[in-house]
């Protein structure tokens, strides 16, 4: 297999993303006595270029989807696709990170599960935790949140649709006498013990 360097991979991504390409950079980090470096390629692209870029990666080496990470940057939500290629070749693995910034007024992203089925867990999680609509997702049910969790509350958002203060449990406050209590927890203090303290 002809192994492309990180810079060559960045160029390939630029070509595959076409007009949707925004920026690319390569980083390295070395640990240990031998100082071998691990390689990362960071690409920013538009929503329309995501699938062509992943399709191109599949042609090079079938990527392993680690996770779709996220960042709420205020007006936008960044979806950060982490894919590895060249795993199985000692010390040659490259992390390709594809970042797509979506405006909060239009939180839609095409699914990639038809290309890489393993991305389903992460796509379902992004829908429930961030309020993203994954267009074409084969299974759009909730995954981690309970069924009775309110609609329209997205735990990872940092705006008004995030977790409201009355949902925060403040588990450190036990409600016992003499210990600090919190504003939101309404547990009354326990009645004093009739016969000694439990051990």
């Amino acid at each position: 297999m002809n192994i492309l360097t990180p810079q060559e991979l960045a160029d390939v991504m630029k070509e595959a993303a076409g007009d949707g390409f925004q920026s690319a950079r390569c980083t390295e980090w070395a640990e240990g006595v031998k100082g071998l470096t691990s390689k990362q390629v960071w690409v920013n692209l538009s929503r329309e270029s995501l699938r062509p870029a992943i399709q191109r990666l599949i042609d090079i080496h079938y990527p392993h989807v680690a996770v779709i990470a996220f960042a709420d940057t205020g007006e936008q939500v960044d979806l950060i696709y982490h894919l590895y290629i060249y795993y199985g070749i000692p010390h040659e693995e490259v992390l390709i990170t594809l970042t797509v910034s979506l405006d909060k007024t239009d939180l839609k992203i095409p699914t990639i599960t038809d290309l890489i089925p393993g991305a389903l867990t992460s796509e379902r999680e992004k829908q429930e935790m961030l309020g993203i609509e994954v267009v074409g997702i084969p299974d759009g049910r909730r995954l981690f949140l309970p069924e009775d969790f309110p609609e329209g509350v997205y735990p990872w958002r940092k705006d008004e649709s995030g977790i409201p203060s009355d949902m925060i449990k403040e588990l450190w406050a036990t409600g016992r006498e003499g210990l600090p209590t919190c504003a939101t927890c309404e547990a009354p203090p326990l009645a004093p013990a009739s016969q000694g303290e439990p051990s």
Partner: protein
Amino acid sequence: MKTLEVKKPSGYTSQFGPAHPAFKEPVMFTLELEGERILKADFAPGQAHRGIEWMGMRRNCLQVVFLAERICGLCGITHALSFCRAVEQIAQIQPSNRAHYIRTIIAELERIHSHLLWAGVEAHQLGFDSAFYLALKVRENVLDLLEALTGSRVHYSVIQIGGVRRDITPEQCADIEKSLQFYDETYEKLVSIFLEDTSIKMRCRDTGVLTPELALKLCPVGPTARASGIRKDVRVDHPYAAYADLDIHPILPDEYTGEIRGDVYDRIVVRILELKQSIGIIRECIAKMPEEGDLLAIPKLGVLLAKLKAADGEAVGRHEAPRGEVMHYVRLTAGEEAPTAWKVKASSYSNYMAWIPMLEGDQIADIPVIVASIDPCISCTDRVAMVRGDHTELLTKDDLHRLSVERMRRIQAELSAG
């Protein structure tokens, strides 16, 4: 004559879990069955979701190190190491090589105890309880060693941003060697019990198969992926800590059996062989460990916090946990103490999807064996949903604490009265 039409029994749907005696942690399976055979499987995790990422994005990086460590009791070092590696890359803090070697030694000791616990649990699911007792008995040795090295059997609190918090002295190296010799002897016994026993082989061969094609597409990690023939091991693929200096290779089941079938037995093979690999890695690390080197790159916490507050950027920290790759994505913004974004990808997160093809087509009786074979880690719970009659109530830690105190007082009253 009228012929009696025999109606073919149609399939039915059954639930398995969320709290089931065969599972150590809560996860719910919904199964479509035909007789004893599973036609279709679906699962619902999240019974134990604690919102750790939410908490982490409201704390400073030094607090997050300890919070990350508490994501999992077994992988105490894994999450702290991954988070610290991500932060170190953003802030350009390079730990000394001695610190890298200490991290590697503790991480491999953790792998030994985690794999032994898993071997015990899997034996218990197989109904082989004498092997369960043996695995847990020999696991005590490495837990005692970890306690001697770090002060704690779980949650070692040894990793810090920029290095480690405790050294390994020459006397402790001798203790480690003693423990490794114990595991050299035990290893032969474990191989004969787990890999050569006829009943384990009969039960696990061709049970819960994950084909190499599906293993590639569903993106599992760690022993689950390697047992299906995917050469993927973060320690080999991605140079980090002391692993880049060592001569290691991903362990695939064909090393022992000569073939790859991707069944439960292959997963047992991979984990048992990895015990031997870990023993070798620790020995090599002790032999090669640099004498010189600071434990912490920035020992003063105030200075470290100030540097982290000024740091700006994003990075990914990874580690091959006993169950497979753990990955932390961290984004720091200059001027802010808490991470702007923090995504934790635990190993079981990647392995969940592999359950479905493993379960479909297999028998109900094999569910515990298959579910445990990926070594799932579902984490402890912070609240319990109770269904009583036709209504559901949510018990918080407050309620549980109150209930347990009330019960204790009731028992005390009964005892003193009787």
